[in-house]
């Protein structure tokens, strides 16, 4: 294969866009709450990727700092989210997102 084409920042951004889109579709389509949370993680990763790519392009370390914080907060978010899921699914085993429509109205 030729090494002529060097992936530019734009390629990374496009890839991040695709990943983000896939994550969005996943959130909308899947019903299992755990998998929906995983798709949210996909979206976060897409964003992190684009931050890192641009940070490299611009020579600014601030992008990577941002990614650092995003990861921390994502971790905390997953913790809380899973705690909630545990609390709910203990009462209603095998519940899907569609079954949790208590706030209908």
């Amino acid at each position, binding site marked *: 294969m030729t090494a002529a084409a060097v992936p530019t920042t734009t390629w990374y951004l496009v890839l991040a866009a695709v990943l983000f889109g896939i994550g969005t579709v996943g959130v909308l389509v899947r019903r299992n709450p755990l998998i929906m949370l995983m798709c949210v993680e996909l979206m976060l990763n897409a964003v992190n990727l684009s931050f890192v790519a641009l940070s490299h392009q611009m020579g600014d370390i601030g992008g990577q700092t941002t990614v650092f914080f995003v990861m921390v907060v994502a971790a905390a978010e997953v913790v809380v989210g899973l705690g909630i899921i545990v609390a709910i699914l203990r009462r209603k085993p095998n519940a899907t*997102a569609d079954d949790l*429509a208590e706030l209908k109205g």
Partner: protein
Amino acid sequence: MLDLVWLIPALPLAGFALILLFGRRLGDPKAGYLATLMCSAAFVVTVGIYFDLLSKPSEERQHVYRLFSWVPVGSLKVDLSFLVDPLSITMCLFVTGVGALIHLYAIGYMHGDPRFSKFFLYLNLFALSMLLLVLGENMLVTFLGWEGVGTCSYLLISFWHERATAATAGKKAFITNRVGDWGFMLAMFFAFQATGTLSYIGINGAASTMAQTTATAIALFAFIGAVGKSAQLPLYLWLPDAMEGPTPVSALIHAATMVTAGVFLMCRISPVLNAASSYAPNLIAIIGVVTALFAATIAVAQNDIKRVLAYSTVSQLGYMFLAVGSGAYTAAIFHMITHAFFKALLFLGSGAVIHNMHHEQDMRRMGALRKLMPVTAATFIVGWLAIAGVPPFAGFWSKDDILLAAYDKSPVLWALGLITALLTAYYMTRQVIMVFYGEARWHDAHEEHGAHGDFEPHESPTIMLIPLVVLAVLSVIGGVINLPFNATTERLTSWLEPVLGVHESDTAKLPFALIAVAIALLGIAASIMIYSKHKAKPVEPEFLAEGWYYDAAVSGFMGGPGRAGFNAIAWFDANIVDGAVNGIAHVVRGTAQRLRTVQSGNVRNYAAAIGVGVVLLLAWFVIVRGSR
């Protein structure tokens, strides 16, 4: 003394308040004496003010006494003020004077009635309203009194409200008055718009500079109000039915005072009427004389003792409007005063007859009462002669003044007035004969009613006779206030001149006077021939007894097309107006119901919505903002 003018309405107001609070405790007859005392005290104050005014030169006889500022709204500044001038004091004199006499009479008449105190409560309220009406310095105070007397009329006509006819009559009176009130209100609006004030001094002062159409409008709309209040065609139909009320009510309200309010109003705004285009007074005079004739024809065929007098009142009021229309305002006021005397006398006399016949009102069941009720009969006969226009009784002088003024305007009006005078003499004589002369027809009737032992009509108690005698005296000598012989004897004319002007007339008075007397005597003679000597058949056709079917026509219209119209309006209000409001509520509810489904409770739906929003925002930023 002039500063005490506020006492005149305040005394009946105090009577009203005291009877309101203590009426039941005072009871029969103390409440009545209290009310009479208040009315008499007001009369005394009025007399004092009268002499006070008399002592002043004639240019200084107009005073405004301001109680307080009533409606200060922007450019409309209306005070509760009293206008003391010859016209208002004249009205106050006979309102309080005749009123006090009727109060006294009512103590005897209403004796034994379970709601005795309430009657005097209303009577005092009426006196208050009437005095506000005549003393008012501006149209709004007059209107306040106007509505007040209308209300009291309703309250008093339907006093015996257990009787369905009485309740209906009360409603009819009030509603018909209301139709007239619409005219009064429009007159007020026009007056305010044209002159910026509702005060009579302001309006009358601006009358000469007003546009003629404005003056005509004010005059005609005020006349509509007067037609309602003073029972002229086409709004007279409440007055005959108003006889359902107790007789003192009929005497006070529907003979002496309230019904004259319309004439008073037209006289009050006489400068405006003078400035109006000529068809306005023409219209007033024509309606007056036609009503007079119309009512007189109906009175000929009535058998209820009070109905005859009711139609007679309508007829005499027609005379007063004839005078107003002919420009002879003083003559109208003069006739108003003499009419107050003799009509009140006639009503009170008929009340005495009814009272002593145990509430029998049909004249066909009376007769030969002269010997059994001598005082009543004598006073009634005086009243009869006065109304028939026989000199030297009061009615002759006032009616003659009016006929003279009518001739000056148009001989046709005079002729119609003369025919009415003939009919007046005729039907009043008929009434006197049927009630006091002839054979006693009440024996058989009373057996039908269930005998109360041996029924014998008797004379009234003294308390009821005193007013009759006083009024009879006044009916005899009342003419003296305006004898037409020369300027000195025409006291009323010169007294009222600063307010009402003078009606100049070149016509010779004597021939007309003689013609009037001849006509009166002719009417009396004809009636005696028919009813006493039975030389000819009485002419009392059905359509006259039914009032030319006017009442039936109005009821038919109102019940038929009228009701259809009202139902249509009510339907419009319920369905379209209410429907629109309810419709908005429905739409909101429906929209809300449908919007509610957006909240499905489902996270994925919300996520989808958020996603769509994100795409749209992104599109805007990338495409629209990006391209700049």
